[in-house]
C-alpha cells in the first residue's frame, strides 16, 4: 500500500506540472503581449507593468516564468491583482463558499441518487423504476444552465418557494436549490450506477447465503447487499467533488454565489491573468488529490483489491 501511494503521488507530479503549465502558458503567453487587454479598457499603468514584469519575470522565457511562479505558489504567494489585492486573499474568501456549495451538492447527490438507485435496483420495472429512468435521462441530457434557469424561474420567481438568489450568509437552506442544480447530472449518474449495482448484486450468491443464514431482510439488504453495491457509487461520488467545484461556475453565476467560479469568470472578464491561473491551480490540485483519495478508498472498500 505504501509503495502504491508513493507511486501514485509520483505520477501526480507530471500531471500537476503539465496541467498548471498549460494554463499558465495559455493565460500569460499565448496572447503575445502579456499585458494586452489585461487591465480593463484603459490599459495597464506603467508602474503596474514594471511591478508585474519584475514579479512574474515576464522578461524571462516562459519556462523560467513558470518556475518562479510555482516557487512563489508553494510559499503561499499567489501574486496580486492589478488593483493590489492579494490573490490568495480572493481565493481564501471565495473558496469556502464553493466548497460549501459543492458539499451540499454532493450530499444531495448521495441522498437522492443513492435513495432512488437503491429503491429502483431492488424493485425493477415498476412505476418508480421507469420514473427514475426517465427523470435521470432528463437530468443527464439537460445542460446545467437550463436546469438552473428553469428551476430558479419556477421555484423562485413564479411560485416564490425559495429565494431566487443566495445571500452572502450562504445558509444551507438557500443552498439546497443551487446544490441540486449543480449536482443534477451527477445525481442522475449516481442513481443509475447504484441501480445497476444493486440489481446486479441482488441475485449474487452471497445475498442468498445471507438469507439462508436467517438474517432479517433489513440486514441482508442494508449490510450485505449495500456494502458491495456501494463500491462503485462511492468511487463516483468521490471523483465528483473535484468536478463539482470546477463546474460550479455556471451555478454560481445563476444564483449569485460569491464562489471561486464566479471569481474566475470575473477575473476572465477583467483580464486578471494571475487570478485565473491561481484559482485554476487550486482547483486542479483538489481534483487530482480527490482522485487519488478515491483510489485509496476503493482499496479500503474492496479487500480483494491489493495494490502492488
Amino acid at each position, binding site marked *: 500500500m505504501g509503495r502504491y501511494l508513493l507511486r501514485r503521488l509520483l505520477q501526480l507530479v507530471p500531471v500537476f506540472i503539465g496541467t498548471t503549465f498549460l494554463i499558465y502558458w495559455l493565460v500569460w503567453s499565448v496572447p503575445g503581449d502579456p499585458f494586452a487587454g489585461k487591465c480593463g479598457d484603459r490599459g495597464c499603468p506603467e508602474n503596474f507593468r514594471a511591478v508585474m514584469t519584475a514579479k512574474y519575470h515576464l522578461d524571462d522565457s516562459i519556462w523560467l516564468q513558470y518556475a518562479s511562479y510555482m516557487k512563489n505558489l508553494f510559499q503561499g504567494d499567489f501574486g496580486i491583482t492589478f488593483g493590489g489585492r492579494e490573490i490568495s486573499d480572493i481565493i481564501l474568501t471565495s473558496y469556502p463558499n464553493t466548497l460549501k456549495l459543492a458539499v451540499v451538492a454532493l450530499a444531495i447527490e448521495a441522498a437522492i441518487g443513492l435513495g432512488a438507485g437503491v429503491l429502483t435496483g*431492488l*424493485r425493477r420495472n415498476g412505476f418508480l423504476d421507469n420514473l427514475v429512468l426517465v427523470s435521470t435521462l432528463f437530468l443527464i441530457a439537460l445542460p446545467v444552465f437550463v436546469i438552473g434557469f428553469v428551476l430558479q424561474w419556477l421555484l423562485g420567481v413564479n411560485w416564490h418557494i425559495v429565494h431566487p438568489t443566495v445571500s452572502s450568509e450562504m445558509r444551507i437552506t438557500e443552498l439546497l436549490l443551487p446544490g441540486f442544480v449543480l449536482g443534477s447530472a451527477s445525481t442522475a449518474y449516481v442513481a443509475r450506477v447504484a441501480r445497476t449495482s444493486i440489481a446486479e448484486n*441482488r*441475485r*449474487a*450468491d*452471497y*445475498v*442468498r*447465503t*445471507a*438469507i*439462508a*443464514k*436467517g*438474517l*432479517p*431482510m433489513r*440486514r*441482508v*439488504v442494508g449490510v*450485505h447487499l449495500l*456494502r*458491495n453495491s456501494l*463500491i462503485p457509487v462511492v468511487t463516483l461520488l468521490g471523483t465528483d467533488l473535484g468536478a463539482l467545484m470546477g463546474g460550479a461556475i455556471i451555478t454560481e453565476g445563476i444564483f449569485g454565489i460569491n464562489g471561486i467560479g464566479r471569481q474566475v469568470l470575473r477575473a476572465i472578464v477583467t483580464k486578471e491573468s494571475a487570478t485565473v491561473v491561481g484559482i485554476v491551480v487550486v482547483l486542479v490540485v483538489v481534483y487530482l488529490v480527490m482522485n487519488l483519495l478515491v483510489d485509496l478508498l476503493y482499496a479500503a*472498500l*474492496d*479487500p*480483494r483489491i491489493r495494490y502492488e
Partner: protein
Amino acid sequence: MSDILVSEQSAPGADGSGRPSGRLLEVDDLRVEFRTRDGVAKVINGVTYHVDAGETLAVLGESGSGKSVTAQTIMGILDTPPGFVTGGQVRFHGKDMLKMSAEQRRRIRGEGIAMIFQDSLSALNPVFTVGFQIAEQFRVRRGMSRSDAKKRAIEMLDQVKIPNAKGRFSNYPHQFSGGMRQRAMIAMSLALDPEVLIADEPTTALDVTVQAQIMDLLGELQRERQMGMILITHDLGVVADVADRIAVMYAGRIVEEANVYDLYAKPAHPYTLGLLNSIPRLDEKGQELRTIKGLPPNLMNIPSGCPFNPRCPMAQPVCREKLPPLLQIGSGRASACHFAEELVNRD
C-alpha cells in the same frame, strides 16, 4: 419486491392441512415452475422425500433434474420470479413452511434448517471477513456481544478443523484455499446448531483429495450432532460412504428411492442403472465408457408418459403413454418404473 428477497409466498395449490407424522422434514408432492419469456418450465413435478434426525438422505441427479431447486424451495431462497411454487408442502416438524409468514420462515433458517452452498467463493460475501460472517449470526440471532460472538465463531472454525482458527478469523474469503473456505462455510451453517443441514454439492468445486476430507468432516459432524442431512450431488462416488438413503431425481421427479446397499446392488429404475453403469471402472480400462444416451429432457416440453422413455433402453409402448407413479417395491424402497419388479428380480 418480486425476487428472492421475499420469495416466501404461499403455494396456491397446497391444501394446507399439515398431517403430523413425526418426521423432521418432509417434502410432499412439491411442484415448482419457472415462468420465463420463452415459456413455462416445469422444474419440480411432485417431489416427495423426507429426512429424519440423525440420517443422511442423498439426492442424486443430473444438473437440471431439480435437486437444487427443491433445496432452494425448502430454504425459501427460490428466485421468484422466475420460480413459483405451484403445489405441495414442505413440512418442518409437521408444519407446512410454505404457509408460514416471512418472519416465521426466517427464524427456521439457520436454526432449524441450514444450507451449505457449492461455490464457497461466491457464496461468502467478499467484503467481510470470514469471522465476521460467522459471528454475525451469533450477534443477530443470539444477541451476543461482539467479543462473545467472536469467541464462538473461533470455536466454530476450530470445530471444522481450520488450523490457527484465531488467526484466520479476520481473513477474507479470497485469502482462504478452496477446501478451507468450504470448511468455513460449514462452520457458518452449523453456527446456530441446525436440526437439518442441506449440503448442495458441497465438494463439486474442490480437488479430489480435498473432496474426501470435506465429506469425512460432514459425515462426522452429522453423526456428532445427530442432524438430518440432505446431501445433494450428481456424484455417485460421494454418496456411498455417507448416505443412509438415496433418492434419484429425473426431470423434476423422484424416480427411485432406496437405501444405499439396495440401490447399488439392485437398482430398480433404468435411469439409476444407467448412472451406475457410467461410473468408470478399473477392470474395464480401455473400454468405452457406458453413458446414458440422449440428453436430459427439455423442461418446457417434458415427454409424455415416463419422462425417461426416449433415453431408456427398456422402453415399451406403455412407457410413452402412462406416467409410472412412485410405488413401493419391497420394504423401504420405491421406484417409478413400469418394470421395476423385473429390474430388481433379474440377475
